[in-house]
């Protein structure tokens, strides 16, 4: 910002507006295509196409986030130390996403087991409530 003239930096701002608006419209277009609103409906068997749509949406959103942080919030002209201390901690979220989505998937797979546990009366102890972890009845009774 420091070296640019006033007129130049104004021009940059409106370029940014057009860029963000166009990226948003592309995102909406991709999303509607993935949901089958633009004539062609991808069938549920075409998992790769739906995955491609989702990845495209995520990449475009990350680009928008980068643009807002670096251009509008001027992160690009801050010193390296500030950039790193703000942006690096966000990498922790990568692990949070992996771990929690794995957990969600596991809940999904164990739905039937949980339902079965909920409906079990206290007397039929023979139902293997823990899945396969505990096998002996004595251990289970604690």
């Amino acid at each position, binding site marked *: *910002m420091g070296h640019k003239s*006033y007129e130049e*930096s*104004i021009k940059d*701002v*409106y370029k*940014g*507006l057009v860029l*963000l*608006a166009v990226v*948003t*419209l592309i*995102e*909406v277009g*991709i*999303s*509607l295509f993935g*949901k089958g*609103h633009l004539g062609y409906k991808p069938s*549920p068997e075409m998992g790769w196409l739906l995955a491609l749509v*989702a990845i495209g*949406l*995520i990449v475009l*959103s990350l680009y*928008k*986030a980068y643009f*807002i*942080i670096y251009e*509008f*919030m001027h992160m690009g002209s*801050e*010193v390296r*130390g*500030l950039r790193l*201390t*703000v942006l690096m*901690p*966000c990498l922790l*979220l990568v692990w*949070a*996403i992996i771990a*929690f*989505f794995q*957990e*969600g*998937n596991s*809940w*999904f797979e164990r*739905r039937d087991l949980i339902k079965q546990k909920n409906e079990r009366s206290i007397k039929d102890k023979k139902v293997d409530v823990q899945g396969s972890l505990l096998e002996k009845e004595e251990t289970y009774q604690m």
Partner: protein
Amino acid sequence: MATETVVKEHDHHDTNEKGAWDGGKTPFGVSYGKLMMWYFLLSDAFTFAGFLIAYGTLRFSSATWPVPDFVFSTAPFGIHHAPLIFVTVMSFLLIISSVTMVRGVQEGHRENKRGVVFWMFLTIIGGIGFLSCQAWEWNNLINKEHMTVTVNPFGTHIESGTYLEGDGHDIKAGDAFKAGDSYLIHKHGGEFHPLKYKTDEGLEKQQEFGPKAFGALFFFITGFHGFHVLSGVVFLIIIMINAASGIYVKRQNGYEMVEKVGLYWHFVDLVWVFVFLVFYLL
């Protein structure tokens, strides 16, 4: 003589060049306020990330999930079946108000009081516009479609079949549907009326409610974001009045307060990028 000059030079050296721990230096070349605004935004980003990751986790854990392009397909002025259109307008409002905020900060660097007030005023209008749209969206979901924190009338079929009765809105008796199609259970006279249908295998069933968590997540996450927008508008109004009164003309750091509230406002736009992605696009 010679020793005297050496001592003097030494003294000179001592007073002017302080060590890193003696104060007087700004770490990272920014003021305390701006640095702390960045760290506050970082912590806020983690709060939002926690919410959105919870949404993803629960969505992964459910067999069905309401399809966003079906849930969010209504707009004011009686527009129906227009998926994502209204929420795209809302996104544009936030983007535009972010741009007017950048202009305000630029005018602040030039010490142009009128410019700062003018662009901040436009930013406030954008923020209020966004909040109004959100109020309409919430009102529509709560009062017309009867979704609450604990009741989610948006369901999704897991098998294909044919309806045995109609709901007087979009569905007529005899309409066929496929697995993955979404529906809304309508409420008449204070009661929900799930429709009966026949699956392709010939079983008679009726519509079931969608995953409960959807309503709670929607209202908490968009509500939390909306609350950020609301407090942002309040901060903007305060700083705009301050700027108009000429307080910042006298300050040594000039219009830095405008920059700081600007950082907050861009962050609100930044969060919306991800709320928009997670709730509406995916």
